[in-house]
């Protein structure tokens, strides 16, 4: 008889499903089965127990081979690298707990680092836009209980947030939405005929990169003003119809993703999406929610917010916090050759930064803290594997709507492995020793 752990929180995406059930072996050591999770979440739990998993830090030798070292040695190397550097980058912070992020913030402050999280290649545009125009939003439960107009703009939850539609946005039978998906009009805006678009009542297959124009046209249509015949490849009749659909709802919500944040226009695309939402509030109720990617990228922005006042792109090198995306953002710092060390935790810039930036990481002293072997670990000088947060250690994480949920420990990590918070604490202590000695 397997042991079942309930109310398990999935540490994959910003949907942060908290209803997983995990079946363990009798001795509680092995994960046998994961219920309720999507394919990605289930894989994350099951793969954590892979037999070929790295369990000790390793340091790259001159010849490119790897040599096992102790956690203390790894912490010493990391601390020295950070203390010696004039302008180290401490990047990532999205696949870890808020308490680890808190310790990381103290290290960054001690050594005068540039600190950035994965928002910088994800919803950084959104954070900037929110600073420009604000953001009328709501928790995902508000949407489940009230929303009857649901827009997915430049996002594809069927693939990227697989349980989003069933838990929150399309299918749930909420308090005021008792008929589930039948209570809702679903609109998808995407240049591809995505699996999400295939489910929609209306799919606006716009020309890629013309989101600003189309959003602007919707604002015009909401106000009942005149439009040209075609905007961004969409006919004006269809734009008026969509505007009417949105205005006639009792509660409209726009979810948006990388389709808008990554395309030219960047934060301006989000500005105007937020402005559409603002405008709709003059007619009905409307909210807008970014589809945040990593399960705790949101938390990282929150922790830095209350400690430093800014959600990403922090430059602490002058002793106080500065914030200036374009200047203090990871990719710009890397490409401009401003950094002299790179520390990565809870993210994989090797896979997800433009290759020009990755090349720079490869040339610098670098430490990668990640349970997996990744392109980042491959180009780093030191790789420190740690326990999986949300599987082998608990900790707080913030959902895409900023709701904090505590992830659970389901099994023990392999013997002798540290959590990232424990490792960071070692580094922090060592940094303080080194600075005290200086």
């Amino acid at each position, binding site marked *: 008889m397997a042991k079942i752990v309930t*109310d398990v929180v999935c540490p994959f995406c910003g949907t942060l499903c908290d209803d997983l059930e995990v079946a363990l072996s009798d001795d509680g050591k092995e994960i046998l089965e994961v219920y309720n999770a999507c394919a990605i979440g289930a894989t994350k739990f099951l793969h954590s127990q892979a037999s070929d998993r790295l369990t000790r830090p390793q340091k790259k030798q001159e010849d490119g081979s790897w040599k096992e070292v102790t956690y203390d040695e790894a912490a010493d190397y990391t601390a020295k690298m950070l203390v010696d550097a004039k302008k180290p980058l401490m990047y990532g912070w999205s696949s870890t707990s808020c308490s680890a992020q808190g310790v990381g913030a103290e290290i960054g402050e001690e050594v005068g680092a540039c600190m950035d999280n994965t928002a910088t290649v994800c919803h950084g545009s959104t954070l900037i836009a929110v600073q420009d125009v*604000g953001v009328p939003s709501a928790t995902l439960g508000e949407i489940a209980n009230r929303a009857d107009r649901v827009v997915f703009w430049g996002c594809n939850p069927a693939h990227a947030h697989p349980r989003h539609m069933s838990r929150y946005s399309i299918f749930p039978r909420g308090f005021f939405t008792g008929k589930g998906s039948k209570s809702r009009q679903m609109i998808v805006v995407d240049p591809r005929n995505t699996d999400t678009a295939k489910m929609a009542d209306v799919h606006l297959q716009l020309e890629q990169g013309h989101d600003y124009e189309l959003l602007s046209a919707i604002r015009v249509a909401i106000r009942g003003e005149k439009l040209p015949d075609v905007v961004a490849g969409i006919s004006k009749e269809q734009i008026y119809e969509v505007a009417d659909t949105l205005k006639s709802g009792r509660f409209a919500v726009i979810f948006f993703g990388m389709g808008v944040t990554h395309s030219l226009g960047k934060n301006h695309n989000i500005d105007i999406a937020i402005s559409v939402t603002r405008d709709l509030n003059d007619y009905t109720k409307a909210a807008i929610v970014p589809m945040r990617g990593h399960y705790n990228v949101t938390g990282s922005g929150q922790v830095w917010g209350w400690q430093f006042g800014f959600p990403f792109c922090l430059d602490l090198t002058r002793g106080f916090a500065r914030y200036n995306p374009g200047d203090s953002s990871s990719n710009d710092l890397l490409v401009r050759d401003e950094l002299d060390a790179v520390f990565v935790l809870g993210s994989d810039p090797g896979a997800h930064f433009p290759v020009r930036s990755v090349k720079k990481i490869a040339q610098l002293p670098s430490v990668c803290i990640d349970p997996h072997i990744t392109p980042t670990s491959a180009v780093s000088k030191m790789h420190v594997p740690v326990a999986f947060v949300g599987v082998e250690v608990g900790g707080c994480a913030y959902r895409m709507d900023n*709701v904090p949920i505590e992830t659970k420990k389901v099994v023990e990590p392999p013997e002798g492995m540290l959590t990232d918070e424990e490792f960071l604490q070692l580094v922090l202590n060592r940094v303080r020793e080194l600075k005290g000695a200086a």
Partner: protein
Amino acid sequence: MTDYLIKNGFVFDPVQGINGDKVDVAIKDGKIVDAGDVTNPTIIDATGMTVMAAAVDIHAHVAGPKVNMGRNFRPEDKLFNCTAGSGMKRMEGGFSVPTVLRTAYLYARMGFGFSMEAAMPPLYARHTHEEIRDTPIIDQGALPVFGNNWFVLEYLKENEIENTAAYIAWLLNQTKGFGVKCVNPGGTESWGWGLNCETVDDVVPYFDVTPRQIVSGLIEANEYLGLPHCMHVHGNSLGEPGNYGITLDTLKIAEGVKPQNDFGREVVLHNTHLQFHCYGGESYASKSFESKSKEVVNYINSVDNISYDLGVVTLDETTTMTADGPFEHHLSHMNNLKWANTDVELETGSGIVPFIYNPKTFIAGAQWAIGLECGLFIKDPMRAYITTDAPNAGPLCRYPRVYKWLMSAKARDDMLDNTLKYGDKIRERCYIGELDREISLYELAMMTRAGPAKTLGLSHMFGSLKPGLEGDVAVYPYNPETDTDDPEKIEYAFGNAAYLIKGGKLIVKEGEIVDMGNKRTFWVNAKVNENPMVERDISEKFRRYYTVTQNNYTVEGPHFVPNPYVIEVDATK
């Protein structure tokens, strides 16, 4: 633990009737003791200085999701004011919404020992507690919001006080909350549909209950439980011209209700930031808008079971933030600045808008005047507390400036004559011109220490220098005999405590922060009789309408509340 003896200061402690006498104050093992009970104490020479119990803030927004949204969406609030760490201190930043570190250091420098976070959305309780945990030095608690909660709306529609009380007890335990906050009762739920409740008798859509029923029911449930703090209300139609009638309607709901508690609390209703609720007239224009502070405070003077805090406008650029979602939407249409909003499933909502209280406008000056009037019309200063509803009417760091205005008619006249563009018009439309009262240091101690401690149900710990209370003492570089010549000295002194002892630890020494203290999180654990119906309702709502499971709702564990101070309340009898 070091013993301390604070010698030769002018001591103000209304609880003991000490009014500027030179009395020695002694601290041993973290508590106040008789001066004779300390051996080999460290002596603090307070000659020529003012000594009071550490201050108690009954209402400020300093931790939690909307506060942090205020930080993150306003990088401009940190322009030119981020500072490096030094000594024990870490980096700081922010003016109207400071980082948690700056909040703590500010409170310490202003001589505070306790602060109540004024609105905690229950679903976001973990966030509030994470910020409180990272705010060193001061003790804090947080008030969960109840005024738009579906359980409360459903129970109070049927006037089910016992069920409401059982739910409140459950939620305080789940969220590690301190008491009952009620923001725009019914209005924020209506805002779920883009609507509002503008009077106490407007009906909440679908739930078919009125703000009057909500306020009345929450007061009753609060007294049924016997919580340390009373029901803490932000009424309907905040900030609207002509709203004073609605405020009086709200206050009158408490008529005849007697406090029931073991904490020495004498009021049953606390009306927060009264300034925003004392407006007459029909628009913000100077020919229509007028102050109704006298009418409202006179009513409060005529009863004995209501307290309030001022919410004084400090004429700064600040960041407004409240669980009153529809109000913030309305405000964003007035100033066309950025607007953030978050509606919270089954519970509440919130909005955030930057705001500039421009002294060159009539309305900002009138609001400034009304806030001060609320502090000057009070007969019993034990029931009127000085706040800026930080950061809504003004930033936290402006408290000392507000003291100056309250304590000096000269400082007020200077504002009306020289700083405010429409000073004469404001004298005409408000009562400020007819008030020459100056709050004394003794009264200040009531309005910032003894009073708020009593209404929070914490007078057995804070607000006085009586032996047995917490060793929380502030020493200000203000000589009440010689410094009365210049009101600026008041502002300087109360923003730059020479010493702060908190829980028996020396935190501020000669104006410098030297210790991060032993921060505690206060929460109230109310025991009620088993209530299967409420338990069933809770599990049902989680199963069907919440997006987190019931088990994942509970705030638990040392990383959220590492150093709790739990106040036990037994309502099973």
